[in-house]
């Protein structure tokens, strides 16, 4: 008897608590008018978490540089971890869109994660800013007016590399890349421009349990008799690949040309492991830490001072994504309800990008320069990349014509 009375009492109290909670949540919901909410999807766990850490540092630095304010509104940042998995990335995106009701969703390192997640953002009529992934589908047939990129379309960087290979008169090539959306785009990119013969191609297993031992593929590449080796191994796979490349003694036989493999994430590790073979190797990119403009000097300088190492291109693009959003919020004076005005403002790319000025194509992909970079040692003995020459000026991706916008 006593017990059941107690139970009933508890139930009433629970109901009261629950109603209070609902009321509090409702209040919190209405309070968002005086803040800009940005969701950011990145990879913070798994070995790819090193990229996420660099992105997090750069986003934090961007918010520091703008005093965490856009048009006098506070910025609320929701950082989410996709765990390197498309399904988790989509869940986290749904959570940002529905539960946090963010105004912008930015980030996305991986093309397969972006492809799985994009509809959740776009169908809710919110803005999607890719800070890295640039799959061909989004640039072409599946393009959307609310999609903008602060990186590149996947094919572009390897196209620039292909152009450089032609210039160096390299006649045959062996190609290695991971077997996922971006890997295929990278291969397609270099193949579309390169005029010589592709002697062989390997697409290796990718994901949280990616293949990291390339002994079989390197043996094939060497036996193929190609004149040069092209690879795309982003994040953790990069140092592993470069180590095995050097251990197999291929530098003298099969010179290496890479995209998104030799960067500020892999170079400190390679330097620690003393893999000097990478010094002098060449790659292409839309950005480099030594690009001479005020925004880049401030970004790289403050990053170096704060973290003791160079930011990566992932960081640079993430920094840009925050600055792009800020430029749009400022131009509508914080009134984010007018989606058309926000979209028009984003389309102008009217901000100081760390890569220098660029414009947007019909598909929301940047039309920008691509540079040939070389790995060098800086004045303080740190390994970094330096621009050698401009390969493409104001280059637009090849899928823009498939986009009906």
């Amino acid at each position, binding site marked *: 008897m006593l017990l059941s009375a107690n139970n009933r009492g508890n139930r009433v109290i629970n109901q009261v608590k629950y109603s209070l909670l609902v009321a509090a949540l409702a209040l919190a919901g209405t309070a968002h008018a005086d803040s800009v909410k940005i969701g950011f999807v990145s990879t913070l766990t798994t070995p790819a978490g090193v990229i996420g*850490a660099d992105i997090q540092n750069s986003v934090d630095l961007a918010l520091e540089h703008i005093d965490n304010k856009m048009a006098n509104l506070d910025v609320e940042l929701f950082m989410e971890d996709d765990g390197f998995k498309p399904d988790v990335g989509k869940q986290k995106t749904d959570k940002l869109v529905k539960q946090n009701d963010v105004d912008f969703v930015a980030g996305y390192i991986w093309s397969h994660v972006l492809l799985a997640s994009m509809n959740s953002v776009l169908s809710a009529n919110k803005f999607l800013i890719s800070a890295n992934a640039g799959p061909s589908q989004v640039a072409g047939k599946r393009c959307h007016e609310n999609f903008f990129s602060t990186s590149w379309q996947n094919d572009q960087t390897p196209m620039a590399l292909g152009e450089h290979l032609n210039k160096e008169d390299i006649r045959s090539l062996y190609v290695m890349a991971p077997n996922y959306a971006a890997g295929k785009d990278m291969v397609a990119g270099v193949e579309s421009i390169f005029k010589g013969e592709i002697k062989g191609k390997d697409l290796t297993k990718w994901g949280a349990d990616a293949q990291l031992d390339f*002994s079989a593929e390197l043996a094939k590449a060497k*036996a193929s008799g190609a004149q040069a080796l092209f690879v795309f191994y982003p994040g953790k796979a990069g140092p592993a690949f470069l*180590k095995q490349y050097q*251990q197999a003694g291929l530098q003298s036989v099969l010179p290496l040309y890479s995209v998104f493999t030799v960067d500020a994430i892999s170079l400190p590790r390679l330097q620690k492991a003393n893999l000097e073979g990478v010094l002098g190797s060449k790659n292409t990119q839309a950005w480099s830490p030594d690009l001479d403009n005020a925004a880049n000097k401030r970004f790289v300088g403050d990053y170096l001072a704060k973290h003791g190492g160079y930011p990566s291109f992932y960081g640079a693009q993430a920094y840009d994504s925050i600055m792009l959003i800020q430029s749009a919020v400022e131009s509508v004076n914080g009134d984010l309800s007018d989606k058309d005005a926000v979209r028009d403002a984003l389309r102008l790319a009217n901000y100081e990008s760390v890569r220098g000025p660029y414009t947007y194509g019909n598909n929301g992909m940047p039309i920008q320069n691509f540079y040939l970079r070389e790995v060098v040692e800086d004045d303080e003995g740190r390994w970094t990349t330096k621009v050698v020459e401009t390969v493409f000026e104001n280059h637009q991706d090849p899928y823009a014509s498939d986009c009906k916008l």
Partner: protein
Amino acid sequence: MDWNLLISQLVNSIQLGLLLFLLASGLTLIFGIMDFINLSHGSFYMMGAYFCGSIVAATGSFFAGIIVGLVGIFFLGALVEWLIARQLYKENHLDHVLVTFGLILVFDALVHIIWGPSGLSIPLPDFLNGQIQLGSLVFPIYRLVIISGGLAVAGILYLLISRTRLGMLIRAGASNRDMVESLGININRLFLFVFALGAAMAGFAGMLIAPITEATIGMGNDIIIIAFVVVIVGGIGSIKGAFYVALMIGFIDTMSRSYLDDFLELLASTAAAETAAPAISAMLVYVLMAVVLAFKPTGLFPPTAGNR
């Protein structure tokens, strides 16, 4: 036919097979003798790599890293057996799976807290970074080091199991655990030793591979699945089965990665072959398992009194 390429790939497949054997031999002993499913066996592989990496960073010596790391992993394995596994031998397999899956998460989180998410690279001494020329063939020296390390451990294990009293008890335990126990053998001590030995071998495999791939969080979680395939196809509890099947799977995996796309091009378009080949070569190992289990449900070399 490019014979140099074929020989290179054979060497590569032996290297992969021996790494798998180092993992699978401990797993099969623990599974066979204690009837304990240890999903977290791959965590010892990871911890071995991290222990070794930290010691190499502190002392500058790769060999000190291996030796001190091995001792460390042996004691870590003993600790896990004493604290956790021992409490579970009497429970059913589902409980083993749940607890050891939890252990994977604990070890991954520990590594994240202690070493951070970025992984640990292990620098090799210069003489191991080079290549060796044999006729017209060039091999990375370190790959040959992995092979000799794996063969040496396999040899030591063979002597231990077939020539010592301890090995006799281990063999007896794998065939009939209850009988060993009823003959008055201190089964707790035997289990502790076997578990720690298995952990040390997994750790050794992790130390060997880490200079190539770096030590990373969760590095053991994908290879442990293949190691389980080795254990099951080889026959649970059979070291001999683990050895032959590990080499066989290393061979299938490496050869399919190198020749499958050429082969598929005979049947389908180049583009289709390029896309399908990696997917099929990832599947082949499991196809092998399904076929073997259909005809020999106890595996190729089940441990019976005579077969070892």
